[in-house]
């Protein structure tokens, strides 16, 4: 029988600007924090998985080891777009489940402050002569000529497609802006968030338009940050102290999916089907349903994305995401609090750190250590990330029984 696995220690750095720290400093701060939190040292760790999207070929795992302990253990440097952190965590969980190690460390880190808005980069100049190139035989750059490659624009269409398919009768711009209003309000209670300013609905709607209906505060905030987790097998956990066992959080489900082919998925990325499949597998693995969740951290890279994931994660009736949100369900005092951390729009989105920071938020509540923003009595939580390409990670976490 496969091992059960637990989060023994977990840590996230403050998200925001860290001009005085490099990528390895941030990764080391998160990793050492997670080890300390778990009451263990680097010598207890049997496997390391690490991710840093923006400098993916640098080998962040070994760079980290050079600073915090070169113990000779296997290192997996992983990259999976915005799901990189969740992939690092999942890699370590797989190794522990497989019995290859009884303790592992997962780390995600990014330096992104000042990087702009996940736009499509710089479009190349047109050539001197029209020469077809690439898989579409394009004679000139197509971004802006055949649709958009900017992330705010892609995810705007993801949200607008949902509005179209489910015939929402209201004003979509206001609906999406209200989602952002919620997350920014939540962020005021999170001292580790990059931005903790509450915005009124009017301020959000009147801010700089990036890609309708996403204005600037409705887009994820680029920032620096890192997060790390120590994963331990159930058998090993039994040998540890009462305090370590009390604070350990059970990983009831750990799932990673990619996007299965759907009509149109190569025209506009389909972020729905892989999330639905990941959620279905996770609920099945954990033996819990969406109604059992005390809180959810989902991938609100844009306000338009949060809406569709209410449906994809089955938090609401099929097609009912707008009504579900407008009922107040996803505010922190609602029936299914979503992104009480402030979400990517205000907590920030240091890409490779996000998939572990979401798990940190859930663990914090399950341990009863979330301070002012504690969701009282939290016992089950779900963390979701999606990276375009696509990859989706879902983890369901449960409070220790004892």
């Amino acid at each position, binding site marked *: 029988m496969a091992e059960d696995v637990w989060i023994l220690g977990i840590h996230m750095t403050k998200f925001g600007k860290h001009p005085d720290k490099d990528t390895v400093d941030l990764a080391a701060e998160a990793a050492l924090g997670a080890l300390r939190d778990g009451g263990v040292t680097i010598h207890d760790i049997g496997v390391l998985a690490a991710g840093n999207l923006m400098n993916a070929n640098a080998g962040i795992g070994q760079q980290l080891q050079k600073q915090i302990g070169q113990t000779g253990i296997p290192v997996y440097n992983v990259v999976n777009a915005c799901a990189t952190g969740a992939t690092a965590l999942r890699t370590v969980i797989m190794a522990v489940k497989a019995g290859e190690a009884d303790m592992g460390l997962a780390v995600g880190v990014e330096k992104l402050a000042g990087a702009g*808005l996940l*736009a*499509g*980069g*710089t*479009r190349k*100049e*047109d*050539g*001197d*002569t*029209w020469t*077809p190139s690439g*898989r*579409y*035989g*394009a*004679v*000139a750059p*197509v*971004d*802006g*000529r*055949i*649709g*958009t490659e*900017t992330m*705010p*624009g*892609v995810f*705007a*269409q*993801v949200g*607008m*497609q949902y*509005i*179209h398919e489910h015939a929402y009768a209201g004003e979509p*711009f206001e609906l999406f802006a209200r989602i952002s209003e919620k997350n920014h309000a939540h962020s005021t209670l999170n001292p580790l968030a990059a931005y903790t300013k509450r915005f009124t609905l009017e301020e959000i709607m009147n801010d*700089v*338009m*990036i*890609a*309708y*209906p*996403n204005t600037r505060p409705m887009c994820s905030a680029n920032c620096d940050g890192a997060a790390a987790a120590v994963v331990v097998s159930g058998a090993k956990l039994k040998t540890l102290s009462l305090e370590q066992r009390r604070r350990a959080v059970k990983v009831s489900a750990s799932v990673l999916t990619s996007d299965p*082919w759907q*009509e*149109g998925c*190569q*025209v*506009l990325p389909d972020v729905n089907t892989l999330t639905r499949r990941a959620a279905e597998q996770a609920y099945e693995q954990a033996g819990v349903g969406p109604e059992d969740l005390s809180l959810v951290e989902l991938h609100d890279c844009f306000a338009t994305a949060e809406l569709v994931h209410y449906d994809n994660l089955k938090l609401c009736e099929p097609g009912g995401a707008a009504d579900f949100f407008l009922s107040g369900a996803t505010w922190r005092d609602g029936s299914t609090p979503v992104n009480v951390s402030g979400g990517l729009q205000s907590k920030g989105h240091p890409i490779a750190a996000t998939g572990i920071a979401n798990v940190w938020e859930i663990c914090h509540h399950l341990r009863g250590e979330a301070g002012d923003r504690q969701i009282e009595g939290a016992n089950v939580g779900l963390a979701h990330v999606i990276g375009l390409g696509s990859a989706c990670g879902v983890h369901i976490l449960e409070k220790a029984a004892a």
Partner: protein
Amino acid sequence: MAQVPLVDYLVLGDDPHLVAKACTSCGARFFDRRNACAACGSDAGFDEVPVAREGVLRSFTIVSMAAPGIPVPFVAGVVDCDGTSVRANIVNVEPTPEHVRLGMKVRLTTFPIGTDSAGTEAVGFGFEPMEEG
């Protein structure tokens, strides 16, 4: 003047239209050069099929911030052309939420995007509203 399409799935001439590659095994449609079918895995090949020139706007965004060199604002969207999804700009319409409606009927249109040093004109495509309002 010599003309060249912006992409190879745009067919110019008297009757401009888009062509897709349809998997001979399952019918899934693609616009790029293929190695095999992403839907069914078959590498038996593809048939070139014309794509309907009229369709319904299934989703859109109005891009106000883009990479340097891209004129903004512009409308980017997904058009459902009789069951085949097409990515395109929505053109000949005010780029405001009041003028671009989900579900509106649109049709293919082509337009020059520039002339190179050899005097060849590149032609792009977009979709325009079929009726006013």
